[in-house]
């Protein structure tokens, strides 16, 4: 077993797939940052709101006023440098740090695919993605045609985890036997051309979409791994991601996954891609000379492998942490994030905060729009950790205005996957006396139904 592993670690393959992945990833990220900026989302999401929701333990990560733009500049330029393979190691470290900092500034904007990008860029810090077809090659006047096989396999494994866990998460009674939440989402796409009017409200179509989505996620990593099914799988990847892009506002993610899936193809395909890029560059008379091909040196491989083994063990375990909390996961959302649970819930809520003076027995309600953007309010009203953090913010705010003694209660209702709204947070609990921790939140009211499955 150990010998197998050791000989696996010595196996070498063409460096082209990783080079193509690096170029694709870097360019996609560069475009993503420009797109984000041009839509005015930096102001809207990070500069305009007075208050930002933090991750537990990362309260110090905040937008930095006008300096926030600098983080985005660093992020965009480092992404471009990654694509070019210019000062690769420094660039990918900067990209990972700046991108992750941006994501940690406000958890309102949490998306699984942003988390995915943070993880992949962390992984890439340890991979020789500039070994081949990079500007670093020209500067150092050497390149490596072969790199250890495991370096490419880590990317494949990461992609496989994303798909497979997203598939596992769909193994629940709402998704499979109620076709929820697609049964809510699809009929509202009645305005799509061609398929909007006749398909989107059909019940059988909701079930077909639910089940095929589940099967797609669970099977696609394997279909991509085996050579015989690979082309078919890639067609599926393209179809699935473009189709979901048509249905839902998911930004750059589908394109990133399509480009990312190319890594499963043989080196031959990647050489073709690189030759194509070379030809394009020749049109501009860009043709580097004098780059020697050398054998890849396996220095410092051991610590890197150790880091990556730990990384993947965490990746495999982390999505199951919800078993440590009472059910229902969809209702309580303890252990919901960072687990590839994508598009599983239609959840809406309403949270009305009550500021009480227990001595005078007076109270007043808070107008959330005084403090939160509508996006923040939407996210806050269905997630207990947001509600708690916001309650403490309100507490600090009203204390500073001289309201003391002070208690804060919330009357809240949440509707999940087409069920009728139910009371969400115990309205008799003073939230200022509750604190965020990894412990289960006792003040979430029970979910009056049962969702079976993983």
């Amino acid at each position, binding site marked *: 077993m150990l010998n197998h592993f050791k000989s696996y670690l010595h196996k070498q393959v063409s460096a082209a797939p990783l080079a193509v992945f690096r170029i694709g990833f870097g360019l996609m990220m560069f475009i993503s940052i420009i797109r984000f900026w041009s839509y005015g*989302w930096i102001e809207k999401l990070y500069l305009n709101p007075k208050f930002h929701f933090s991750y537990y333990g990362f309260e110090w990560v905040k937008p930095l006023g006008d300096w926030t733009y600098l983080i985005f500049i660093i992020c965009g330029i480092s992404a471009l440098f990654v694509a070019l393979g210019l000062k690769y190691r420094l660039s990918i470290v900067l990209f990972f740090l700046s991108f992750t900092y941006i994501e940690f500034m406000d958890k309102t904007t949490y998306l699984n695919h942003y988390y995915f990008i943070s993880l992949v860029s962390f992984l890439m810090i340890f991979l020789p993605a500039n070994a081949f077809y990079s500007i670093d090659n020209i500067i150092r006047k050497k390149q490596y045609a072969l790199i250890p096989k495991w370096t490419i396999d880590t990317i494949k494994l990461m992609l496989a985890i994303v798909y497979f866990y997203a598939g596992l998460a769909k193994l629940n009674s709402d998704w499979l036997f109620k076709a929820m939440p697609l049964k809510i989402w699809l009929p509202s796409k009645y305005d799509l051309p061609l398929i909007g009017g006749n398909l989107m409200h059909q019940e059988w179509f909701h079930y077909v979409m639910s089940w095929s989505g589940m099967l797609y996620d669970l099977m696609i990593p394997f279909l991509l791994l085996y050579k015989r099914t690979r082309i078919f799988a890639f*067609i599926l990847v393209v179809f699935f991601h473009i189709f979901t892009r048509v249905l839902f506002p998911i930004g750059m993610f589908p394109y990133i996954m399509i480009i990312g899936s190319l890594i499963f193809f043989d080196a031959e395909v990647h050489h073709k891609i690189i030759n194509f890029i070379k030809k394009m560059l020749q049109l501009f008379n860009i043709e580097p000379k004098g780059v020697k091909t050398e054998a890849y040196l396996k220095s410092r491989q051991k610590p890197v492998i150790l880091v990556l083994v730990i990384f993947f063990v965490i990746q495999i375990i982390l999505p199951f942490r919800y078993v440590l909390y009472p059910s229902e996961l969809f209702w309580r959302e303890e252990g919901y994030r960072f687990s590839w649970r994508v598009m599983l819930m239609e959840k809406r809520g309403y949270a009305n905060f009550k500021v009480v003076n227990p001595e005078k027995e007076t109270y007043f309600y808070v107008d959330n729009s005084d403090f939160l953007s509508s996006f923040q309010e939407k996210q806050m009203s269905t997630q207990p950790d947001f509600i708690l953090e916001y309650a403490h913010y309100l507490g600090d705010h009203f204390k500073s205005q001289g309201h003391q003694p002070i208690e804060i209660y919330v009357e809240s209702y949440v509707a999940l996957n087409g069920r009728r709204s139910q009371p969400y947070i115990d309205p008799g609990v003073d939230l200022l006396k509750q604190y965020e921790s990894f412990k289960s939140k006792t003040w979430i009211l029970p979910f009056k139904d049962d969702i079976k499955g993983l």
Partner: protein
Amino acid sequence: MMKKIILGLFTLASVMMIVACSSDDNDSGNSVNDGFDRSAMLSNWANNIIIPVYEDLDTKLEAMVAQKNIFIAEPNTSNLENMRTSWKEAYKVWQHAEMFNVGIAENTNYIFQMNVYPTNTVDIQQNIDNQNYDLASVNNNDAVGFPALDYMLYGLGDSDVEILEFYSTSADSNNYKTYLSDLTDRMESLTQAILDDWKNAYRDSFVNNTDNSATGSINLVVNDFIFYYEKGFRANKFGIPAGNFSPNPLPDRVEAFYAGDFSKTLALEAVDAIKNFFNGRAYVGGNEGRSLDDYLDFLNTIKDGEDLSTLINNQFVAAENKINTLNDSFAEQVENNSVAMTETFDIIQLGVVFLKVDMLQALDISVDYVDADGD
């Protein structure tokens, strides 16, 4: 082989891209045939509710302008009383119009020029004294419209005799007459412009815009309706005076504060408007047409869920019953027993949950339109 596949993929991708891109456009509305005719719902709203409401409002405001002209020509008790009656008639119709903030109503900031209260008596007094004002200015939103007239007709003095003095014997009576006249004329001309727009180009573009997008008519009106229910109805009429948003009750924040015993009439009129809209009941004649209740019932046959339209209607009725038990003057109600007022607020509040959480979930309409990416 490989080339063919790649070519095929590109074709597939570009077809999907075309679908993706054109789905962002607004021109696809008419072809929808999934079992619920959204265009019919929109035309019911336009033809049987919105336009008739504006027509009636315009008529009532014209009558008010006429009464105003008589009153400033001859300020006496009976003309004041007639002017007040015409103001009340128009104010009642206004309760049916306030929830619709689309088209040029939205562009001209109409609602904020018609019914922002409490009115700012200091600003009004300054305008009267200076004789130099722009009634369209945002700064004057709380010095115009029905609440300003409330003050001008009921609030200038303690008795009718005192009030009449401002328009007849006082040194600057002309200033008072001019301000009263300008206020009234402006309300009428704003309303006329909106009615004209609805009767001309806007109706058709409204009815045909059936998309489920941020600019689709259904989404706009539903968001307006919920915003009105939560803010204009729940908070302004009940919550704020009852002290739900402040440490103490604020009786002077009620609608039609100076008229005194009129706030309950207006609130009941508003419940009526809310029920009518939700059930698609025609403003004239009361025939029921397509509206949100039918849309929810249609979606419910897909989802096999709760009977939301009944739940929501029951909540409206509960609110109406509770309002009926209140004092004619909400200001007196708040002063004497603000608990009954907060109880009313709580009943209305449950309606907010049904509308904002359950109904929006069923309709899959976004309440905020943040154009950020989803997962």
